[in-house]
């Protein structure tokens, strides 16, 4: 039945489609599903939330106008398009440094962050992060605090704590693992 076929296609929104074009409704669903992740990816490259918004918009415009022909998942294709858009925008903007600038993008939310459900979701994330931080061993929490809050480089932290740089990085890696488990439960990467 045609109805069953249409329903089946909606159950796999991120798989390759036979048609080159992507329906606007599907674009909207994709935006709701991975718009935030694409925004974060762009922020990671650009360190600018507003420019990241432009990247996300350009990515979905390209998906709407061109569709996709790559031999990869639609999700992967969107991420690749967003990355390329971000890198291209960074070149156009003349951004010379990848240096992390807290004032440029720190604390800014992704697209549509003003919606109540987005604000509520963000509050929940912050509370989960607090819980995760409280559960960290003191030495791991110390490294996270010094790097993220006080913005000291890992080399400076290693010098201040009088421990090897590898030890500092190991503590950060262990802390990231725990923070990720708390912030992104159920999002496993057992089979990358």
């Amino acid at each position, binding site marked *: 039945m045609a109805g069953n076929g249409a329903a089946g296609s909606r159950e796999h929104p991120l798989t390759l489609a036979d048609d080159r074009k992507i329906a606007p409704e599907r674009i909207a669903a994709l935006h709701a599903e991975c718009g935030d992740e694409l925004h974060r990816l762009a922020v*990671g490259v650009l360190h600018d939330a507003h420019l990241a918004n432009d990247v996300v918009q350009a990515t979905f415009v390209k998906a709407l106008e061109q569709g996709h022909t790559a031999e990869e*998942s639609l999700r992967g294709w969107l991420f690749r398009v967003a990355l390329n858009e971000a890198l291209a925008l960074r070149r156009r903007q003349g951004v010379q440094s990848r240096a992390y600038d807290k004032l440029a993008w720190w604390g800014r939310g992704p697209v549509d962050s003003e919606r109540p459900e987005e604000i509520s979701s963000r509050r929940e994330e912050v509370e989960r992060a607090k819980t995760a931080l409280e559960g960290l061993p*003191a030495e791991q929490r110390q490294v996270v605090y010094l790097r993220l809050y006080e913005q000291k480089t890992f080399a400076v932290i290693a010098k201040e704590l009088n421990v090897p740089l590898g030890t500092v990085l190991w503590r950060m890696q262990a802390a990231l693992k725990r923070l990720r488990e708390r912030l992104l439960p159920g999002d*496993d990467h057992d089979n990358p």
Partner: protein
Amino acid sequence: MTTPEYDRLLLEATIYVLGDMSSAEGDAFEARLSEDQVAREALAEAVLICQVTTTALAEGDRERSCVASCGANDVPFERLPASSVDRVWRRPALWAGLAIAASVAIVVGVSDFGRPQRLAQQGPEVAHNPGSTDETSLDGERQLAVAWLNSTLLADLEEPADANDADDATSESDEVALVDSHGELLTPVLSTEPDWLFEAVTTPPLQPAGSSNETPQEG
């Protein structure tokens, strides 16, 4: 659960986000991003973790500062606790006690400083036999009273003191100043003293053998 490979990738993405990579390392990581979807997702997760964790750290900074003084295991930094000596010196009762002790010392010192001149003015017989004067007996009483006051003040200081104790000590300081003027003003102090002190104060000082034929008064 994540694999160790993904944990290292997440750390690498975090280092990239935080700008701790060299230019060559950054280029290499971006080349990997162009080819590896897992790396791209790791970068997005690194951004999320950094943003949310920084917000949590900022919001909890005040709370952590409060907890920091309670235990090093609960805080990002081990803060040195305030010195116990500093805490002792901040106690109001201690300062009040020191002020009282200083005032008593000044009162006694001034009194003793003027005593030789007064004895000299009263004549050689008085100067050679000071135990026969009323002033000597008053000095003895005053010294006993002052000693008793000092002992009670020191006892109060050893106990946990509060603001009321400090007020009491201040009022006792006023009484000490009155003690030095006239013997009869010792009454408010003696009204709260133990019996042994009352007997000690009311009993005339002991005289050297043969220096006086007076007998102690009963009662």
